[in-house]
């Protein structure tokens, strides 16, 4: 680990770069040295079999999991971490972590809206208390986002009164309300009934088209193929193959990737 305050990411990755990430849970080694990067405006899809480490990798980016080793840059800024004995890495500055998290939106498989707050309250909470946005401005921002995701008439409803698709759209709006420079999606449609998947994918496609940098873990291959500028195939804790969607889906060079796509069991 260098002592340099902020070395630039080694192989590009102006929006996001991870280098040689390792992560184990007990004896189970989940990430075995993953490197990946995204330039501004990139939409990167991560695909791979269940248990291959997709969620773990995504969760390392905003330090919901701390990697055992490796380096992470968000928007060109290195997240400073130090070795803490046998516990592996720990962030050097929680302030830096909180600040970076506030610029990285995350959308979870299970929505994770705050159930004791209305949709509107969910959307203005972090802008007001984390970004210190004036209340009026936070509400205006939230309203225009709700308009965009088609939930303006649900603004005063509680999450329990919304369908899964509506909850996920509200959760996406909550993340966007921070005006993040990077959006992370962890299987945003996997918990939804099939007939609700479309409305959520439509919202995500919409955000992709406005040029926001995104990283999406998904099992929706048709969607990944359509929106991505780059696809990463993770296998057993390693990047097995990566490339533009046409190449990866039409002519994968790795045998494992070919098998994974052919089996259709995602």
């Amino acid at each position: 680990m260098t002592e340099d305050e902020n070395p630039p990411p080694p192989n590009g990755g102006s929006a996001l770069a991870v280098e040689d990430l390792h992560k184990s849970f007990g004896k189970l080694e989940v990430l075995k040295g993953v490197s990946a990067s995204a330039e501004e405006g990139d939409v990167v899809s991560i695909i791979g079999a269940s248990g291959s480490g997709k969620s773990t990798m995504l969760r390392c980016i905003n330090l919901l999991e701390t990697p055992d080793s490796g380096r992470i840059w968000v928007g060109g800024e290195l997240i400073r971490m130090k070795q803490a004995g046998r516990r592996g890495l720990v962030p050097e500055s929680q302030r830096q972590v909180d600040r970076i998290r506030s610029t990285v939106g995350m959308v979870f498989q299970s929505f994770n809206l705050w159930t004791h707050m209305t949709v509107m309250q969910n959307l203005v909470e972090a802008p007001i208390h984390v970004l210190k946005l004036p209340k009026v401005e936070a509400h205006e921002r939230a309203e225009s986002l709700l308009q965009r995701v088609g939930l303006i008439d649900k603004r005063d409803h509680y999450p329990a009164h919304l369908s899964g698709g509506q909850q996920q759209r509200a959760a996406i709006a909550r993340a966007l309300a921070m005006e993040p420079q990077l959006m992370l999606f962890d299987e945003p449609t996997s918990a939804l009934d099939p007939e609700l998947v479309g409305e959520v994918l439509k919202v995500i496609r919409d955000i992709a088209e406005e040029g926001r940098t995104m990283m999406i873990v998904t099992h929706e291959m048709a969607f990944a193929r359509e929106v991505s500028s780059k696809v990463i195939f993770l296998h057993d804790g390693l990047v097995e193959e990566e490339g533009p969607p046409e190449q990866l889906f039409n002519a994968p060079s790795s045998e494992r990737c070919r098998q994974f796509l052919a089996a259709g069991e995602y």
Partner: protein
Amino acid sequence: MDFQLMIDSIPQLLEGAWMTVKLVALALALGICLAIPLALARVSKNPFLWMPVYGFIFVFRGTPLLVQIFIVYYGLGQSEAVRESIFWPFFKEAYWCAIFTFTLNTSAYTAEILRGAIQAVPHGEVEAARALGMPRLLMLRRVVVPRAFRLALPAYGNEIILMLKGSALASTITLLDLTGVARVIVARTFAPYELFIMAAIMYLALTLLIVRALKYAEWRLSPHLRPPRHSK
């Protein structure tokens, strides 16, 4: 059964009931203020925070309230240091000894209830707060504690009722709470049956009020569990 005596005793018993209400309300109010930081310390990973709180809770849950009152009321007065301290005017009074003991006792139970509730807050909601860059204290204040309060309410309601009944022990250190007043009248009239029946009825009435208030509080605090209003 001497109904006349029962009716005649009502004004005095009501005064006792008022004392009971004051004792319980003050102890509960102070107790919950103490319990919130205690519960947060209890779920902390730092052993310097959680271990002392664990010990405090263990002691207050593991000993009878009556013994605790006696230690505070009779025990503290024996100590030279306490009698010469600025706290003596306070610990000299049975009333404040009772408030002090009840407060610590209920804060220990409440802290334990809140600890359970804090740990029952869905992990994903906590993670969503972290992912948005909320610092720990902000997350506790805005997401975890409000959420935990709602989860804790039924168990806390139970604690309120237990505290109400436990407060009868104040009568053992000369206080004229509801039980204390009943005992004084019994000593004068030798009519334990009539007086304690009346006291029991008043305790029941107080419990009924508490149960109603709790129901209302639960209703107010959980709009998210009710069907939506269809007016808009």
